[in-house]
């Protein structure tokens, strides 16, 4: 039996029914093994019709359970046949009938009910038997189970997924009962009966019965909150109970602490109080109801500690909504010696936590501004909680003091919190209620107030907190360490907020008692404690050892302890510690220590990548709080990039870069950009290589994944540099004052570089780095570097453009050779003869620049001619000029995004003439005025887009999923293309592509596992960015496409292409957001690019057929696509094969065809076909027809792309 068994299908039920005799331990109840046989007996006839269904259900259930539960191989030597759900249900029916017999009861308690617990929901058809048991059975153990299952039936809100109990899934009983009309029992039938019976229980005032009463009330609260009828009933019951027992004045000390002291009656009462408040806590909050609040406040004085906890929890919830009435109602409890003070000594941690929250919300409430006496009482109570023996309570109190209450982050509140913490004094009331301590109470140890001599002395809060935290950091318990680090992190947040608001301009180095003197000036501001000035001024601050009595000193010693905690073996604790350190880091402090900690932490392979990305996001949040820290944070981010490139998400890093760059402000931009580009100097261990990527082979030998990741990071950095250098340098061609001619005069390269760097060091620095990359990076990086350079060249004015031109020219020289040799054997990696191998890539870039310079020269010449001849410009001449302008604009737009309305490819001098022509012919320039790229700077635009990209993980997932396919397509395209003969390059490409393909889902997987619904600070912030930029992005899109020809959708851009109009697709927005598949992306790109052939039409571009033109995607197309094409620069190779022979055919005479086979659309722009369908063929693109159907298909689409081979053209 043992060997042949399929152990993979073992369920929990199998486990529980397996023969315990084989288990090592002696099981006290060996009976379960016998159960199946007993249960398998035939049952009463009236269930017969149901049985067949049930058996089937049982099979379904087991199968489902096997599929669902991730149960792995469990070696089992012996196993009985597991009990089925149906058997269990049957035996309940049977045994219920004979519930008066001891044996039945035993059977139920020991076998049937425990096994039923394995299932995650309970069939309503069991309910009648349960109710019968409930009425007739006297056995407490049976009844306890009956209440348990009744509660589960009540709580199972019909939706299977939401039932609280886990376990083996049971089928949808209601549906089955409906089908099986005879004798079917649905929830709708049984619930009223259950509720009625339980209500009767819950209102039964018989003192002997009151244990059942409590259980019934508890079971009743399990009903789903949606049923208002039951809710009303519940409120009625609860208030009814409280009416009777709530008012009774009771001395808590007797009831609670003297355990044996209470008489039976008061015990009963306190039990009922407990049950009623517990139920009330589970009911929806009713803040407007005075009775609700009244009962809750009564609860504070109840004897039962759990009841008090619930009462406080309810009150603190209500207090966040209606602080005024709560404060008024609590007025007599907060007074010295009142009930609230007693809670300080209550042995229930959560009660004190609720107390802290209550005190916080009342002491901060704006509604209570006129009652400083009340608020101060609450804050002093809160401060006393800082002394609480429980870490949980103390930390909650610290967080409350710091202004961290819920997940909403308000800077003012946090800043005020830091001030409070640093300046407030805790002064205990004169007579702390030590006397309340009850010596014969077993829980009295908690009550022991701190050694009174110490506690009585007024203490600055900060000191108390620091000491407490320091001692917590010495704990061995990981939860305590984690929590303490979290508190320090929150402290850092509050401190950062205080700095950000400038509230905290006082030097931290001042002795602490100095604060106590000027503290009262802040009282009014922050509603602080109203201790008399006299006491405060005489505060004798006890000098700690070493005289570290300044806040700075305290912080330093705390941080010292925090740092040592990094030694904890738990990565989560360490992560929290690092986050805390990041938050406590101040802009002016040295960050070496932090850096070295992080650096050596990251060498530990145990770090999960989700956690690392979390820390990166912390950096992000930290930057948000203190923009001054951009450079510091980027330095830290760099460590991540060097140490664990394989684990961090390049998107997260890019996000950080962009935030830092954009947020750094005008004067910080330079440093921010510098810090980003430090990544280009990776990896540090090889200072010899400029970029480190030459050593990529060596690295990959040890860890190919991280080598690839590092490579991608560098690519990302280079790309980032190209896109954002102009923004960082505030240098735009369309804002440059330098006339084009001046640059031409400085043809001496040295002079030019000198002039450039003196004028704009940021841009000059970026250029130098990019040039270095273009020379000596790996093959992939060089390509991107060249693209980045051309982007900068196009966007910047002189002398940068010329400088780049010179550089590119030099770079391409080697490549020219292969160009001449019919370019068929060009391989891009031929480092020997052709130098950089970038010739084929660079030549079209150079040609664009050539065109621009030539046109500029022509313009200058023409202008001079006109001036000399005192001739007006004729309309014809102007038109020609304008056409050149437009043509060049189109050309330039292929490489990078430029604002069309402002960009002057012919130089600033052309502005006037073009303006004249535009005015004369009413050509609108609306594009430029509301163009966000101009208004906010280009980087903002990118930033917004990629923000979106980062957020829309789903979208990315989709594209990632397609990635490998595309990669294969490219690889295939390459094989029979030009590159087939170059084996090493092929390998590299394949490796790269394959790496790119497999990498992404990995990340995605982790993302999935760890993604939670909870909204945190980071989420919120990211979301807010998302929202703000979304609008902007849309704007950009629409303005990008506002040239009349491109109306936005792929189809129109394709067809407009054949209409022969100008400037179509690359600027057209993507068809449907970011979820579009890569297929459609690249195809629309193809079309657009192809169009560029026809539109520019100049001899320069005809017949080159190089892929290069296709690479620089438009700026406004998504960053995703941009990246795709960056990473796969040869993407276009596959597309090279398409002919242009039938280009014009489609648009003129419609062609008809018939679908030969069924075809299922694989992307948004594809069209599903059924064999035999008649279609109209619009045109052919790269092996695809664009066809239109006569009527919409099942998916409602009329037109789209289908493979040529699927359609027979007539």
């Amino acid at each position, binding site marked *: 039996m043992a060997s042949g068994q399929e152990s993979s299908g073992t369920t929990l039920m199998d486990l529980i029914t397996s023969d315990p005799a084989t288990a090592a331990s002696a099981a006290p109840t060996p009976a379960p093994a016998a159960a199946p046989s007993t249960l398998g007996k035939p049952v009463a006839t009236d269930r017969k019709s149901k049985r067949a269904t049930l058996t089937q259900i049982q099979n379904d259930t087991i199968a489902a359970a096997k599929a669902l539960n991730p149960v792995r191989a469990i070696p089992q030597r012996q196993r009985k046949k597991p009990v089925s759900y149906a058997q269990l249900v049957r035996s309940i029916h049977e045994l219920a009938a004979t519930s008066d017999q001891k044996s039945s009861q035993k059977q139920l308690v020991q076998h049937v009910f425990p096994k039923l617990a394995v299932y995650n929901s309970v069939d309503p058809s069991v309910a009648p038997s349960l109710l019968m048991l409930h009425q007739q059975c006297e056995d407490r153990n049976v009844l306890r189970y009956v209440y348990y299952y009744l509660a589960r039936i009540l709580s199972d809100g019909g939706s299977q997924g939401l039932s609280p109990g886990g376990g083996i899934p049971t089928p949808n009983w209601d549906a089955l009962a409906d089908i099986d009309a005879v004798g079917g029992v649905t929830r709708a039938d049984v619930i009223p009966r259950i509720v009625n019976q339980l209500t009767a229980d819950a209102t039964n005032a018989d003192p002997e019965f009151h244990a059942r009463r409590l259980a019934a009330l508890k079971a009743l609260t399990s009903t789903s909150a949606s049923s208002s009828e039951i809710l009303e009933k519940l409120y009625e019951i609860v208030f009814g109970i409280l009416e009777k027992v709530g008012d009774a004045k009771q001395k808590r000390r007797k009831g609670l602490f003297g355990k044996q002291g209470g008489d039976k009656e008061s015990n009963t009462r306190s039990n009922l109080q407990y049950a009623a408040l*517990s139920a009330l806590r589970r009911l929806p909050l009713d803040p407007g109801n005075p009775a609700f609040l009244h009962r809750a406040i009564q609860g504070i004085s109840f004897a039962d500690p759990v009841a008090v906890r619930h009462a406080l929890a309810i009150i603190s919830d209500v207090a966040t909504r209606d602080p005024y009435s709560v404060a008024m109602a609590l007025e007599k409890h907060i007074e010295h010696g009142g009930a609230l003070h007693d809670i300080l000594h209550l042995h229930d941690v959560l009660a004190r936590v*609720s107390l802290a929250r209550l005190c916080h919300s009342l002491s901060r409430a704006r509604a209570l501004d006129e009652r400083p006496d009340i608020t101060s009482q609450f804050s002093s109570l809160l401060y006393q909680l800082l002394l609480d023996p429980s870490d949980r309570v103390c930390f909650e109190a610290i967080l409350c003091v710091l202004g961290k209450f819920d997940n909403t982050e308000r800077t003012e509140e946090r800043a005020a919190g830091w001030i409070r913490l640093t300046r407030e004094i805790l002064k205990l009331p004169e007579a702390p209620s030590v006397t309340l301590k009850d010596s014969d109470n077993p829980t009295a140890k908690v009550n022991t107030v701190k050694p009174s001599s110490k506690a009585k002395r007024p203490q600055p809060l900060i000191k108390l907190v620091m000491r407490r935290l320091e001692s917590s950091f010495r704990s061995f318990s990981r*939860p305590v360490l984690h929590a303490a680090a979290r508190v320090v992190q929150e402290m850092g947040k509050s401190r950062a907020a205080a700095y950000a608001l400038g509230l905290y301009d006082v030097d931290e180095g001042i002795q602490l008692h100095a604060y106590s003197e000027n503290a009262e000036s802040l009282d009014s501001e922050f509603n602080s404690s109203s201790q008399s000035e006299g006491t405060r001024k005489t505060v004798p601050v006890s000098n700690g050892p070493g005289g570290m009595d300044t806040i700075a000193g305290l912080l330093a010693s705390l941080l010292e302890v925090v740092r040592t905690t990094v030694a904890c073996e738990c990565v989560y604790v360490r992560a929290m510690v690092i986050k805390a350190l990041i938050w406590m880091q101040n802009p002016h402090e040295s960050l070496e220590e932090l850096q070295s900690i992080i650096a050596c932490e990251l060498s530990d392979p145990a770090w999960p990548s989700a956690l690392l990305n979390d820390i990166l996001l912390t950096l992000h949040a930290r930057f948000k709080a203190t923009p001054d820290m951009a450079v510091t944070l980027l330095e830290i981010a760099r460590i991540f990039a060097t140490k664990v490139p394989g684990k961090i998400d390049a998107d997260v890093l890019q996000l950080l870069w962009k935030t830092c760059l954009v947020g750094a402000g005008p004067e910080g931009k330079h440093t921010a950009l510098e810090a980003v580009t430090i990544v280009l100097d990776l990896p540090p261990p090889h200072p010899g290589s400029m970029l480190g990527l030459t050593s990529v082979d060596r690295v990959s030998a040890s860890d190919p994944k991280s080598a690839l990741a590092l490579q991608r990071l560098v690519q990302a950095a280079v790309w980032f540099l190209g896109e954002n250098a102009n923004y960082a340098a505030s240098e735009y061609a369309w804002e440059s004052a330098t006339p084009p001619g001046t640059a031409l005069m400085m043809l001496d390269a040295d002079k030019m570089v000198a002039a450039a760097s003196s004028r704009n060091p940021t841009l000059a620095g970026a250029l130098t780095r990019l040039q270095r990359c273009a020379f000596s990076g790996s093959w992939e990086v060089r390509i991107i570097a060249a693209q980045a350079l051309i982007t900068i060249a196009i966007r910047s004015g002189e002398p940068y453009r010329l400088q780049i031109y010179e550089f590119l020219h030099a770079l391409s020289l080697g490549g020219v050779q292969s160009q001449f040799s019919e370019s068929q054997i060009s391989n891009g990696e031929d480092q020997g003869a052709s130098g950089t191998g970038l010739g084929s890539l660079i030549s079209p870039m150079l040609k664009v620049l050539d065109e621009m310079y030539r046109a500029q020269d022509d313009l200058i010449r023409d202008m001079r001619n006109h001036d000399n001849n005192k001739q007006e410009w004729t309309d014809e001449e102007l038109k020609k000029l304008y056409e050149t302008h437009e043509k060049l604009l189109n050309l330039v737009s292929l490489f990078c995004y430029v604002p069309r309305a402002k960009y002057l490819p012919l130089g600033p001098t052309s502005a006037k003439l073009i303006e004249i022509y535009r005015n004369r012919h009413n050509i609108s320039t609306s594009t430029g005025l509301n163009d966000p790229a101009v208004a906010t700077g280009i980087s903002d635009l990118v930033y917004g887009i990629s923000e979106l990209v980062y957020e829309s993980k789903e979208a990315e997932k989709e594209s990632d999923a397609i990635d490998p396919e595309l990669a294969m397509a490219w690889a295939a395209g390459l094989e029979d293309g030009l590159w087939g003969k170059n084996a090493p390059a092929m390998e590299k490409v394949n490796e790269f592509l394959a790496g790119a393909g497999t990498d992404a889902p990995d990340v995605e997987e982790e993302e999935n596992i760890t993604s939670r619904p909870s909204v945190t600070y980071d989420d919120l912030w990211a979301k807010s960015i998302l929202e703000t930029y979304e609008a902007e992005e849309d704007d950009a899109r629409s303005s990008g496409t506002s040239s009349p020809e491109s109306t936005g959708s792929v189809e129109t851009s394709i067809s407009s292409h054949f209409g022969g109009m100008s400037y179509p697709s690359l600027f057209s927005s993507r068809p449907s957001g970011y979820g579009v598949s890569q297929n459609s992306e690249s195809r629309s790109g193809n079309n657009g690019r192809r169009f560029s052939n026809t539109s520019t039409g100049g001899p320069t571009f005809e017949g080159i057929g190089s892929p290069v033109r296709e690479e620089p995607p438009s700026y406004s197309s998504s960053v995703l696509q941009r990246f795709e094409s960056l990473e796969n620069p040869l993407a276009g190779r596959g597309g090279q094969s398409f002919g242009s022979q039938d280009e014009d055919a489609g648009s003129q005479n419609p062609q008809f065809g018939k679908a030969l086979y069924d075809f299922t659309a694989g992307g948004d722009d594809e069209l599903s076909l059924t064999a035999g369908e008649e279609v109209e063929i619009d045109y052919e693109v790269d092996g695809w027809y664009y066809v239109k159907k006569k009527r919409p298909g099942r998916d409602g689409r009329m037109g789209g792309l289908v493979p040529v081979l699927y359609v027979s053209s007539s």
Partner: protein
Amino acid sequence: MILAVLFTNADGNILVERFHGVPAEERLHWRSFLVKLGADNLKGAKNEELLVASHKSVFVVYTILGDVCIYVVGKDEYDELALAELIFVVTSSVKDVCGKPPTERLFLDHYGKICLCLDEIIWKGMLENTDKDRIRRLMRLKAPTDA
């Protein structure tokens, strides 16, 4: 909110799970996340040694008791310390029910009781009873405090 309580055996088979306010489609993620966490970290851990993990604002505290791994997940007021409190109550009640740190067999033999005692400890995603005696009394359908 206590989001989840999960008991598994040493091989990562789920013995008991209770979710509160976790959508069905996320439960699978949680299960595999927790089981992986335990597989990575619980090897060689001492009985009842508390381990901690967190993700954003959600906290996880877990431990091993006999052959059984226990995980609790919470957020908001149920932070790592409150969860440590909770897991302490759970472990001590389980020990109470089983009489000692349970083997897997022992645990399964007391399955019903353990479900009942969880029911007393956590009620609708909130910690209810923490006192061992009280839990024991309530499991037998007696009043929490009695003369």
